C-alpha cells in the first residue's frame, strides 16, 4: 500500500510552518483520492499493463488506419495479384519487398488483410462484450434482487445456457440465422452472458442484505432505484474486470466462428478465416500465410489479457481470484 507523501515529511521533531503547510497539502491530496483514482494510480505503476495498453492502442490505430496500409503498399484489401502475388503453380508467394508478409491463396497482400482484419476483431470484441455485460448485469441484478420465482427461473435459464457448450450453441444459431458481422455480434452478446450473470447474481445476493439497502427501502425507494443507485455501483468493479477479461475471449470466439467458416463471410478480411484458408497451404510451404494472421490474433488476445489482469489487480489489490473463468 502506498502512503501519502505526508508521512515522509513528519520525520523530524517540532513541525515547522513549512512542514505544516506541506502536511496540509498532503492531507488534502490523500483526501481527494477516490478508490477509482487509487486504482488508476496502481494501474499506471504496472509496467506490463502499460506496455500491453500501448500494444492495444497500436492495434486500434492499425485498424483505424488500415486504408493507409493499403495506400502505402498500393495493394487493395480485395485486390488479387494473380501475376505477381502467386507462383506459376498458383501458390502464395512468400514475404518480399513487394509483399512484406507474403500473399494468400488468392494473391492478396497479407499485411493489408491483417490490418483490415483488426477492424473485425476489435469491433466484435468490444461490441459483443459490451452487449454480453449489459445483459448479464440486468439478468444478474434482477435474479439476485427479486429472488424467489424470478431467481429460480433465471437461475435455471443460466444453468441451461451453461450446459450447452457456447461454441456449439453459437454455431447452431449462426447456421440458422445466416452468417454476417451483426449476427456474430448479436449471437455472442445475447447468449454468452450466462457465466457473468451468475457472478453478478452472487454479488447482488450478498449486497441485498446490507443495512444501506434496507435503509433505502425504509426510505421508500422502489426496486429499480435500489438496484441502480444502491446495488449497481457496488458490483461495478467486478463487472469492469469481467469486461476487460471478456474482450479477448470474445475475440477468440469470433475468430473461431470464422475459422469454422460460419463467422464473417468472405471476402471480408478476418483473422480466423485467414488461418482457416491457410490450413490448406502450409503443407505447400506457405508458412507466412498461417503464421502472420496467427501472430496478429495471439498478440491481440495476449495484450488484452495482460491488461485485464492489471485492471483486476488494480481494482482489487488483494486479488479476487474467483473472478477467473
Amino acid at each position: 500500500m502506498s502512503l501519502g507523501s505526508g508521512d515522509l515529511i513528519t520525520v523530524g521533531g517540532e513541525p515547522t510552518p513549512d512542514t505544516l503547510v506541506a502536511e496540509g497539502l498532503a492531507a488534502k491530496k490523500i483526501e481527494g483520492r477516490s478508490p477509482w483514482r487509487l486504482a488508476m494510480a496502481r494501474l499506471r505503476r504496472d509496467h506490463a499493463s502499460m506496455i500491453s495498453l500501448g500494444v492495444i492502442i497500436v492495434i486500434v490505430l492499425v485498424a483505424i488506419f488500415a486504408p493507409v496500409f493499403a495506400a502505402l503498399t498500393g495493394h487493395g484489401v480485395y485486390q488479387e495479384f494473380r501475376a505477381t502475388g502467386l507462383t506459376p503453380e498458383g501458390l502464395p508467394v512468400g514475404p518480399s519487398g513487394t509483399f512484406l508478409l507474403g500473399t494468400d491463396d488468392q494473391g492478396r497482400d497479407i499485411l493489408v488483410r491483417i490490418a483490415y482484419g483488426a477492424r473485425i476483431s476489435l469491433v466484435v470484441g468490444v461490441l459483443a462484450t459490451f452487449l454480453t455485460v449489459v445483459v448479464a448485469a440486468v439478468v444478474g441484478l434482477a435474479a439476485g434482487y427479486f429472488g424467489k420465482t424470478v431467481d429460480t427461473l433465471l437461475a435455471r435459464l443460466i444453468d441451461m445456457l451453461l450446459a450447452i457448450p457456447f461454441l456449439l450453441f453459437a454455431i447452431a444459431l449462426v447456421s440458422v440465422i445466416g452468417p454476417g458481422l451483426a449476427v456474430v455480434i448479436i449471437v455472442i452478446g445475447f447468449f454468452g452472458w450466462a457465466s457473468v450473470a451468475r457472478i453478478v447474481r452472487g454479488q447482488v445476493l450478498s449486497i441485498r442484505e446490507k443495512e444501506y439497502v434496507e435503509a433505502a427501502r425504509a426510505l421508500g425507494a422502489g426496486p429499480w432505484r435500489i438496484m441502480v443507485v444502491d446495488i449497481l455501483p457496488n458490483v461495478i468493479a467486478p463487472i469492469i474486470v469481467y469486461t476487460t477479461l471478456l474482450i479477448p475471449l470474445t475475440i477468440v470466439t469470433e475468430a473461431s466462428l470464422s475459422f469454422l467458416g460460419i463467422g464473417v463471410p468472405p471476402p471480408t478480411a478476418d483473422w480466423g478465416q485467414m488461418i482457416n484458408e491457410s490450413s490448406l497451404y502450409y503443407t505447400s510451404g506457405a508458412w507466412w500465410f498461417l503464421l502472420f494472421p496467427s501472430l496478429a490474433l495471439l498478440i491481440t488476445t495476449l495484450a488484452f489479457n495482460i491488461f485485464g489482469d492489471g485492471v483486476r489487480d488494480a481494482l482489487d489489490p488483494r486479488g479476487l481470484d474467483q473472478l477467473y473463468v
Partner: protein
Amino acid sequence: MARFLIRRIVLGLVVLFLVTVVVFLIFYVGPGRADVARTLAGREATPQTVALIAHRLLLDRPLIVQYGHFLSLLLHGNLGYDYYHDQSVNSILKAAFPITLSLVAGAAILWIIIGVLTGVVSAVRSRSLLDRTFTGLALLFYSMPTFVLGYLLLLIFYYEFSIHGIHAFPGSGYTPFATSPFGWFRGLVLPWITLALVSAAAYTRLTRGSMLDVMGEDYIRTARAKGLSERRVIFRHGLRAALTPVVTQFGIDVGILFGGAIITEQVFGLPGLGFTAVQAIEQQDLPVIIGVVLVVATAVVVANIVVDAFYAVLDPRVRLH
C-alpha cells in the same frame, strides 16, 4: 447424500428437457427444414418430390408433432435417424464417442498434471524466476486460440519434420486403438498437447491463486509448527484445500469437452462428436444435432453433480442437501 442426488438428478433432467426444447425451437424457426428436403430431393426435383420427402421426415408437421415424435422415440432409447443417410443417430454417436473420449481423457490427464504442478510450484516459490516463467507461459497459452496452437504444432512437428524426412506424426485422421495402439497414440499426441496446453494455462493460474490463499491460513502455520515436513504441509494440508476450485473447473471443462473438442477435432481431422456436430449443423441435420447436444448436456449435468458430490469428499465441512 441420497436426497441430494435425487434432487440434482431431477433438476438435471429438467435442464436436459429444456435443452431439447430450445434446440427444436431454433431449428423450427430457421430456414433449415425447407433446405433439408430440397437438398435431399436433388436439383431436378419437382415440388411434389420435395413435399413428399418433407412429409416422410415429418418436416411439414407442426413443431409439437415433431417434438412428440422425438420424445416417444427417445423414451425407447432411440435418438432417431439422420436425414441424409437414414443412419441411426445412436450408431453415429457410438462411432464418434470413442474418438472424443480418447482425445479428452488423454488431454485432461496431461493438463491437470501440468496445471496443478506448475500452479503449486508457482505458489510455493512465489515471485521466483520459476514462478514468473510459469505464470508468463500460462498467460501465453491462456491467450492462445486452440486452432492457432494446433496449426503451429502441425507446421513444426508435421510439416517441417516431414520435409526433413522425419514422419513422426500424421497430419490428420484417427486410428482406432483396436486397429493399432501405436497408431492411435501417434495420431493423438499433437491433439493431446494442443488441448492440454491451452487448458492447463487456466489451471496453473487457478491453482496458484487458490494455493496462495490457502498457504496463508492459520492451520498451515500450525502444521508447520507441529514440525511436519514442508512437502507434507504443501501436499497434504495445502493442496487438498486448494484443490476445491480446481476440481469445479475440471468437472465443468471435461463435461463440456465430452461434447466434442470442436476446434481441436476440426484442426486434426478427428471425426469425434464436435466434428460430427459441426457437420450436422452445416447440413441442418436435426436428429444428429439433437443427439450430440443431448450427449454434451448430459455430460455437463453429470459433471456438475459429480463435482458437487466430490466437494463433500474434499471438504468435510460441506454438507449436501
